[in-house]
């Protein structure tokens, strides 16, 4: 089994080859590059599965090798020896799991594209498939990167690919600007990341994620020594560098306040959205936190910030999702919200819970996006939910798979999303009982469950239930096997993936069925779940409400209750033939006038009184404070530029005068400091 690891580089190289082929020969190929892409991602998937087997069956349980050394300097870090920049592969249980997820989603997206893109007669398909190939390659290479520098480089490449793909329809007005926004906003975060990478390299002289010479181990040793790093306490410095890296994560994973690019990114093809949201770009941020979790585990402050940002984002995005009409917009906000949960989970020390939700979310969000893509095909590229309705009977496969995804997203038992979300909230609750800040994050996360349930089912009902509200909804476009196959595959996963870690059941019954827990407990020493649990024991106290069992029940019960009430409210409001116009409903069923009235009030209050202002305020905050800052900086720079260049008058005598002025100023500054005059 161990020999399999020699093929590990090929996992990422297959899609790269597909990229090259699509780029070079795309226009001449029968499906414009789709076939090489499908073959390559299928190959990656097979190899990734083999890696899982090898990790499970191998003696060491992980694979770590250095492929290439960029540069090695004698320059000493603050702590370490010489700095070395390398390229290497690290496949441990976490990476193996992520490889499978990424290659699976990429594979399914390629298949789906056959119908979504090819059959619709798009132009520029070779470019599309080349982009997908490069995207998959970058993400896979990012996943198995064994050091922070390599991770950073592929992180950037992922950003570049998303730019290319979001801007696929570059002839429209909105797509290029959305692509640009995505690129710039994430790059803004990446600047912090870069500084973080440099700071970590300069401090510890190593950028390895795992092993004895990793920066995590070095940081731990430095904290134990109690020494000073760059004039700070070791722990403070670890927090600072960790938060700098977190800047990149917040940008890529669309956390508040750098989430603004993501809804706009819906301008790209829906398949690309599926890939971005489920497995690649957005997942990259959270994956990075999981990857260097040991580092964050050293800093309670960083963890608390992660948790709080996560909780806040979860709620914030969920409220915004409530008022959107475009099916893809709703999904976009739900993505932001769900990644908020993952951050919350990781921040409260729920390493397994965070990774578990990352996995489940990958399945059900890919499913929902592909489902939305199918709906869009059905609707002849109409995305407004108010123009849909009644698709339930006309496209049963799409409906039932989408419903499975929606149930998982809303966190309804026993669908996969419930298990992971519940585990995150449980982890947050037990920490929250001891720490008020985490309690607040938990409360926001909990509240978001309600909104999640509401918007999810609002979307389902508006799209599939009721009466058709437009001509195309009466007579939808048929969909073929290339759409149905990925939907069914993901639908099954969305239903059953929760089995991987039935933590509440395990806690209540004592059965050993926490498979993911087991899985993440092996691997490189220091990066295992067990090691993290030890590290976290020093950081967080946990407490129970009553006994462990009651706490489990309370946590699960609360979130289920909220999810059901959100879903129920949506059902009340929207699972009717004509959900929009209450005036028409007035005439139809007299008995329900009262409840209608009640609903209207409630809806008005919810939508206009609370959510809309909240959404508006959030939007305004976006537009004024955040955008304003960005625009302000650039216009100040440009204005400054205009002033600065005016110094260059073109008159050489003035130059001489300015030179002399500058020189005298320099002489006076240094002279006064050096005491030359007295």
């Amino acid at each position: 089994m161990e020999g399999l690891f020699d093929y590990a580089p090929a996992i990422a190289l297959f899609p790269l080859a597909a990229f090259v082929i699509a780029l070079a020969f795309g226009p001449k190929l029968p499906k414009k590059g789709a076939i090489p892409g499908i073959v390559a991602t299928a190959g990656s998937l097979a190899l990734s599965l083999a890696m899982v087997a090898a990790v499970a069956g191998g003696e060491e349980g992980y694979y770590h090798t250095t492929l290439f050394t960029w540069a090695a300097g004698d320059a000493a870090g603050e702590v370490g020896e010489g700095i070395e920049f390398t390229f290497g592969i690290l496949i441990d249980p976490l990476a193996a799991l992520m490889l499978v997820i990424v290659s699976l989603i990429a594979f399914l997206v390629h298949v789906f594209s056959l119908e979504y893109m090819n059959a619709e007669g798009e132009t520029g398909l070779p470019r599309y498939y080349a982009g997908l190939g490069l995207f998959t390659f970058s993400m896979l290479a990012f996943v198995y990167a064994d050091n922070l520098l390599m991770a950073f480089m592929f992180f950037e490449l992922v950003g570049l690919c998303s730019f290319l793909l979001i801007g696929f329809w570059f002839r429209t007005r909105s797509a290029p600007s959305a692509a640009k926004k995505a690129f710039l906003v994430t790059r803004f975060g990446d600047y912090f990341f870069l500084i973080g990478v440099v700071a970590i390299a300069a401090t510890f002289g190593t950028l390895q994620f795992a092993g004895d010479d990793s920066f995590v181990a070095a940081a731990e040793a430095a904290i134990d020594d109690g020494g000073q790093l760059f004039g700070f306490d070791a722990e403070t410095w670890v927090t600072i560098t960790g938060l700098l890296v977190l800047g990149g994560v917040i940008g890529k994973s669309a956390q508040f306040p750098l989430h603004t690019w993501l809804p706009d990114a819906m301008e790209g093809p829906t398949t690309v959205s599926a890939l971005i949201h489920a497995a690649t770009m957005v997942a990259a941020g959270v994956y990075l936190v999981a990857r260097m979790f040991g580092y964050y585990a050293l800093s309670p402050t960083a963890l608390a910030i992660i948790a709080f940002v996560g909780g806040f984002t979860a709620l914030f995005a969920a409220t915004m999702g409530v008022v959107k009409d475009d099916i893809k917009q709703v999904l976009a906000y739900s993505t932001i919200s769900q990644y908020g949960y993952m951050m919350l989970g990781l921040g409260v020390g729920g390493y397994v819970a965070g990774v578990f939700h990352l996995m489940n979310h990958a399945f059900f969000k890919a499913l929902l996006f592909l489902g939305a893509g199918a709906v869009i095909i059905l609707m002849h590229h109409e995305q407004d939910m108010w123009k849909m309705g009644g698709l339930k009977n006309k496209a049963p496969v799409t409906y039932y798979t989408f419903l499975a995804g929606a149930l998982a997203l809303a966190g309804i038992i026993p669908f996969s999303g419930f298990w992971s979300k519940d585990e995150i909230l449980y982890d947050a609750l037990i920490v929250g009982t001891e720490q008020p800040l985490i309690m607040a994050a938990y409360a926001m996360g909990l509240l978001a469950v309600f909104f999640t349930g509401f918007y999810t089912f609002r979307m389902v009902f508006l799209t599939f239930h009721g009466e058709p509200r437009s001509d195309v909804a009466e007579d939808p476009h048929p969909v073929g096997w290339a759409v149905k196959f990925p939907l069914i595959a993901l639908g099954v996963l969305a239903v059953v993936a929760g089995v991987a870690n039935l933590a509440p059941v395990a806690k209540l019954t004592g059965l050993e069925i926490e498979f993911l827990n087991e899985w993440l407990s092996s691997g490189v020493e220091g990066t295992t779940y067990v090691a993290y649990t030890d590290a976290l024991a020093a950081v967080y106290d946990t407490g129970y409400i009553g006994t462990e069992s009651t706490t489990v029940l309370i946590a699960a019960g609360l979130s289920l209750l909220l999810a059901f009430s959100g879903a129920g409210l949506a059902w009340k409001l929207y699972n009717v033939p004509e959900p929009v116009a209450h005036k028409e409903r007035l005439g139809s069923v007299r008995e329900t006038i009262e409840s209608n009235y009640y609903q209207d009030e409630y809806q008005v209050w919810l939508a206009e009184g609370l959510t809309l202002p909240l959404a508006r305020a959030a939007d305004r905050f976006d537009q004024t404070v955040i955008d304003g800052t960005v625009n302000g900086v650039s216009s100040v720079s440009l204005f400054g530029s205009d002033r600065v260049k005016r110094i260059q008058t073109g008159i050489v005598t003035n130059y001489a005068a300015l030179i002399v002025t500058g020189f005298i100023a320099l002489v006076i500054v240094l002279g006064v400091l050096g005491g030359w005059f007295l």
Partner: protein
Amino acid sequence: MNVPIEYFVLLSMALFSIGLFGILTRRNALMFLMSVEIMVNAANINLIAFALYHGNLTGQVFALFVMALAAAEVAIGLGIILVLYRNFRDVDVTVPTTMRW
């Protein structure tokens, strides 16, 4: 008669500043060139005075080289002023301002 070194230094500094004054206030390219020569010669005074002060000849020999280099500089300067005149019909250094900002 032994003149203290301070006076030489002050003299050369004065000469240097006079040259600079010329550069800053004169617009004729030839005047500019002459002013630069004055500044260079201020340096020469220093070099020669310090040579005597330190008792080695390095400064003196270097002063010779500086003169040669100043001559070379003037040769090129004159060439440039010549083409300047042919193009702009003027040797005012503030006239050519087509490139700025």
